[in-house]
């Protein structure tokens, strides 16, 4: 005896699909409830995961992307003290070659240190950063201007919005800066405020002072020196680290390439700890939904026990009947997944346009950690498809119950 095939002839598949469609239509309420359960589960999973991954992206791009850089090229002694004394000698030829690398989106030399800014009797400690003219021209800085202008003569300074508020200065006002310069010299200068900056991170806005590279070198006495070169690679995913590759292709004497993952292990740890928490919540969601679906399937199987027996008695092969039920569930889960993805996508797009904003103590705590208290979602399609796949698989696993019923039902009612 041959092993029974699921569909003996090609036309039987067509028959099964047709029957499945009709069966779905026969009990619309049941189909709708099952489909809705699937799409709701998917909808919530997508929103949850998009927000979570989006927040990581937000953290990384504000804390890393704009200020300290995805990859830093610095003297091997520069980290972790970030001491001005461990600066690099300028090397324009090397910089040009690095910029021409197709893997490199941008590379900007900077010099930075700590200083005290003072206006009359108000003062504040600031991290001053000298940026190159090319970097000042980049859209990143151009779009951050809160007031004033980027077109300005030598001796200009741009302050983080909150630092300017704290010092009560407006563009055109002058400030005195002092600090420790290169190799123990005294750094002292008088600067004119050219503009204030919106940096997307309250901590940075409270302590950043941006200068032109030449002014910063003159202020600190580190003539012809760079603290580091900030490199933005083309690939910027959280789990990408192109620093070793780039370092091998563009060696610089006494310097090394450090990725943000190496420089800020605490950020990676925060993300990893948090993502595990998120996975646990998703797992619970899926278990709940999974049992819900299983319940629906058991109900479906019991309701249709007579129908199955009747069809078997009339000579329908069990394989064909099982195939029909399987296709029913498959169609149902695909439809649920499709509406779930659609709804999730719409919600994510709305959240991207109008991001959730935290308030109160939570917001204060998050701002203290260094980023704006908003929850922008990730727009990555892979989130939708991964979770659609998971929920379809769960539904198909739950379909094992009605299939078992098909094979156990006797055509003769005893």
């Amino acid at each position, binding site marked *: 005896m041959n092993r029974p095939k699921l569909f003996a002839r090609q036309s039987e598949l067509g028959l099964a699909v047709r029957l499945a469609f009709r069966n779905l239509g026969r009990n619309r309420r049941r189909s709708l409830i099952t489909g809705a359960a699937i799409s709701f589960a998917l909808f919530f999973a997508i929103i949850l995961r998009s927000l979570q991954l989006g927040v990581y992206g937000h953290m990384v791009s504000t804390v890393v992307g704009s200020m300290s850089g995805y990859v830093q090229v610095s003297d091997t002694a520069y980290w972790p003290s970030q001491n001005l004394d*461990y600066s690099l000698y300028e090397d324009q030829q090397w910089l040009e070659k690095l910029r021409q690398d197709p893997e490199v989106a941008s590379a900007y030399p900077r010099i930075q240190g700590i200083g005290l800014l003072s206006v009359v009797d108000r*003062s504040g400690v600031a991290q001053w950063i000298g940026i190159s003219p090319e970097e000042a021209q980049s859209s990143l800085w151009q779009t951050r201007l809160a007031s004033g202008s980027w077109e300005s003569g030598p001796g200009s300074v741009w302050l983080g919005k909150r630092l300017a508020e704290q010092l009560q200065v407006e563009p055109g006002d002058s400030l005195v800066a002092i600090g420790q310069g290169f190799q123990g010299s005294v750094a002292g200068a*008088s600067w004119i405020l050219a503009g204030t900056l919106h940096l997307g991170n309250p901590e940075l806005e409270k302590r950043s002072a941006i200068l032109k590279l030449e002014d910063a070198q003159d202020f600190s006495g580190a003539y012809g020196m760079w603290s580091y070169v900030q490199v933005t690679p083309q690939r910027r995913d959280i789990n990408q680290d192109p620093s070793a590759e780039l370092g091998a292709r563009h060696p610089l004497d006494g310097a090394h390439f450090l990725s943000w993952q190496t420089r800020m292990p605490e950020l990676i740890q925060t993300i990893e700890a948090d993502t595990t928490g998120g996975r646990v919540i998703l797992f619970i969601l899926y278990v709940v939904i999974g049992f819900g679906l299983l319940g629906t399937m058991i109900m479906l199987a019991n309701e249709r026990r007579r129908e199955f027996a009747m069809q078997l008695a009339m000579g329908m092969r069990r394989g064909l009947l099982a195939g029909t039920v399987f296709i029913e569930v498959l169609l149902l889960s695909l439809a649920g997944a499709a509406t779930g993805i659609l709804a999730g996508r719409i919600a994510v797009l709305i959240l991207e346009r109008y991001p959730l904003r935290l308030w109160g103590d939570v917001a204060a705590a998050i701002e203290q950690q260094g980023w704006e208290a908003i929850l922008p979602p990730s727009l990555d399609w892979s989130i939708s498809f991964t979770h659609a796949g998971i929920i379809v698989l769960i539904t198909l696993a739950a379909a094992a119950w009605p299939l078992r019923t098909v094979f156990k039902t006797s055509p003769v009612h005893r």
Partner: protein
Amino acid sequence: MKNTALRLLVLVLLISGTKLMGQNAGEILAKAEKNAIGASSYSELSMTAKRARYTRELELKTWNHGNKYALIVITGPERDRGTRYLRADKQMYSYVPRSGKVVKLPQSMLMAGGFMGTDASLDNLLGQASLAKDFSHQYLGTETVNGLLCHKIKCIPKPGIPVAADAVVAWVHTGDKGWVRLSFQSNRSGEIQRMDALEFARMDGIYMPVRLQFSTLGGKQSTLMTIKNYKRQPQLSPAWFTPERLEQTEP
């Protein structure tokens, strides 16, 4: 009966012994500090900070009244010439020659960490709190330091005394040279900084250390300070140390 008398004698000896030691430690420190604390003076110093990558030379002039009032003017190197600092009790000011302005400093800024890229702190230059008056003492015996026989005394700041260290161990010469080594210690990280007096001389009638070494990071970094000139200035009073004086005193 005899036994009891003996015990009593031992007890009395023990009590008087510790008391004697305690008094001794305080007296030793008071004697060592007799000339240094509370004096008004003018001095010219040079400092050399040795670092892994560079050596930095610094020349300065200072005026002080006790350890709460001081004016420091940098006379070299050329790039830093004219930079000045003023401490008037709890106020700190700096004059930045490139801006021509006097800036008020938060007190923490220069008190903490090295002064001008050296291993000495501003407190070291101005004289810290009095070891004899502001600290309680524990006598730890004698030790030879830098070739001189010294009393070793552990000093713990009395409550309310603003000192960066949790304890200061002082080695004071058994003769009349004063302190030979001071070790500033923190409970958490051990020795923070060490001061060594390497050479002594009589200046304007006062016997004092004229070559000092400051070391930090367990001796990995050090700064040598030489006192080139020292004059007593008894006429200086707190009223002399004003921001106007800071602005007007040329290097």
